[in-house]
């Protein structure tokens, strides 16, 4: 038998994890409240905006809400609060007047009467005008607004300055052969939609067990696999809060065990990053902490296996990656409106904030000394997991920043994995189907 004995070497790249800012470490909950996050967010982002205002409107004075004067044009910096009629409130349960507001779309809480309010330490003012569209913004965004106070004590907005996109470190020129990173999310091992064969095809393809020498050459250029959340789905029937009887206990760990076996095959071949998502056995609130390595007894034996936080930030050969398992974008979709998911992602970059709706409508650890979701440096590749379909585009910033935005679809529903070339930032999909029709 004629066998090509040439061994194909897998490409390597230098990896640097930048998850440190998302780690909660030894912090203990000591009764701190969420006001601290808003304070630190406003402080840091206002400093950033103050440095941009002289370039934007050098001739106008900068005011606080308390220092507003009627009819005088000025610049205000503060936190946006979006007053929403349909937003569910915990106090509604206790309300004596039971005015039932019908929710038209259960997945979106927008209403034409929604309006924006700007807050700083000194006070709050209602915003008006056609420049600022309430459907675009959400609570927690920091903006600089140009305008003047009207006779009915509203602030008429004439122009808006957003904090981002932040500046970007220079993208290194990667010579030699191409290198790829594969993204996959929403494996949902253990759910009814999970197809073991489909996932095995993915594992075999990426590790180079499928295809001929030509395919294997391409596969050898994959330097890393990133699993962006929702890898496991534990059946709802065992998550009732009751003690699980011994017969059902296997249902709890069976999905994890199955995932461990597949991940071992991946980790043998190349570095693997796993991020937690909504369905995974990690903490609920953002930043989600790395999954415990004990969950994966087989895979954790390899030093190519990395459990990461969500959001996850890292550098590969100097190319910066940032992404989440999708909670931040899904939450924006509930409280604002855009033509597609990429537009939401684009907005978070323009606001320089990964998850502005934390802590208002998205769970978040009550940090006191920092806001980890403030994006200081623009990534080169910005991804978001667990979306319904694949989409991607390049974003060009005002200072020449180039960002590849990627929506990673749920693998269990679509069988799609996303491949990115870290040199050229080009992006394409891998489709796996077990359908024989």
């Amino acid at each position, binding site marked *: 038998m004629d066998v090509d004995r040439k061994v194909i070497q897998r490409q390597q790249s230098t990896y640097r994890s930048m998850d440190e800012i998302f780690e909660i470490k030894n912090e203990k909950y*000591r*009764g*701190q*409240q969420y*006001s*601290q996050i808003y*304070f*630190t967010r406003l*402080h*840091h982002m206002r400093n950033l905006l103050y440095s941009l205002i002289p370039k934007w409107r050098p001739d106008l004075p900068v005011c606080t809400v308390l220092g507003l004067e009627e009819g005088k044009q000025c610049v205000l910096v503060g936190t946006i609060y979006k007053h929403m009629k349909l937003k569910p409130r915990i106090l509604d349960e206790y309300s004596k007047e039971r005015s039932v507001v019908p929710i038209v779309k259960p997945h979106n809480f927008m209403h034409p009467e929604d309006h924006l309010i700007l807050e700083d*330490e000194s006070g709050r003012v209602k915003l008006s005008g056609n420049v600022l569209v309430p459907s675009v913004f959400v609570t927690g965004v920091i903006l600089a607004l140009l305008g003047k106070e009207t006779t009915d004590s509203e602030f008429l907005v004439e122009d808006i300055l957003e904090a981002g996109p932040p500046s970007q470190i220079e993208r290194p020129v990667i010579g030699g052969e191409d290198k790829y990173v594969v993204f996959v999310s929403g494996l949902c091992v253990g759910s009814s939609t999970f197809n073991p064969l489909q996932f095995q095809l993915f594992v075999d393809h990426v590790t180079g067990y499928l295809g001929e020498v030509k395919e294997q050459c391409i596969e050898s250029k994959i330097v890393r696999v990133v699993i962006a959340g929702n890898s496991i789905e534990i059946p709802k029937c065992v998550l009732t809060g009751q003690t699980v009887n011994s017969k059902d206990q296997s249902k709890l760990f069976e999905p994890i065990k199955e995932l461990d076996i597949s991940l071992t095959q991946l980790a043998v071949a190349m570095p693997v990053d796993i991020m937690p998502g909504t369905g995974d056995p990690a903490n609920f609130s953002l930043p989600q902490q790395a999954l415990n390595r004990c969950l994966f007894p087989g895979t954790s034996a390899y030093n190519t296996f990395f459990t990461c936080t969500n959001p996850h930030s890292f550098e590969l050969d100097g190319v910066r990656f940032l992404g989440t398992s999708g909670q931040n974008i899904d939450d924006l979709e509930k409280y604002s409106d855009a033509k597609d998911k990429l537009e939401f992602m684009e907005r978070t970059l323009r606001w320089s904030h990964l998850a502005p709706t934390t802590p208002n409508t998205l769970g978040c650890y*009550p940090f*006191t*000394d920092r806001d980890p979701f403030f994006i200081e440096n623009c990534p080169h590749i910005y991804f978001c997991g667990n979306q319904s379909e694949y989409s991607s585009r390049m974003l060009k910033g005002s200072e020449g920043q180039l960002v590849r935005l990627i929506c990673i679809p749920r693998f269990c529903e679509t069988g799609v994995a996303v491949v990115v070339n870290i040199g050229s930032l080009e992006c394409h999909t891998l489709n796996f189907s077990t359908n024989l029709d």
Partner: protein
Amino acid sequence: MPTNNVQDFYRQVKSNRKDLGFTKSESSAKKKTHLSEKQTTAAGAKEECEWERLLTEFDMDMKYGPCSGMKRLERWERAVKMDLNPPTEIGNFLKTMKIGDPKRNCILEGKLF
């Protein structure tokens, strides 16, 4: 349980600014020399009161952010990190404090929930 009386919440402190003979804006150096002159117990109590007032003032200053859920020193150090220039004498005083001293906690400690 909510308190009905404001005085229960904020301990009543008589203004003793004049007694000690200095105002907040004066330099800390002057304060130290002034305080070292009076070593009697009465002066010690007054000094205590004065510090209490200064620390409360620091807690209530919104410039340095909300105070609940943080130790006073943590809040002071955060303010330093954010370049907000909190009063140095407050920081020095907080650093000399013993572990377990109730004055390490902010004024709202244990009163919010």
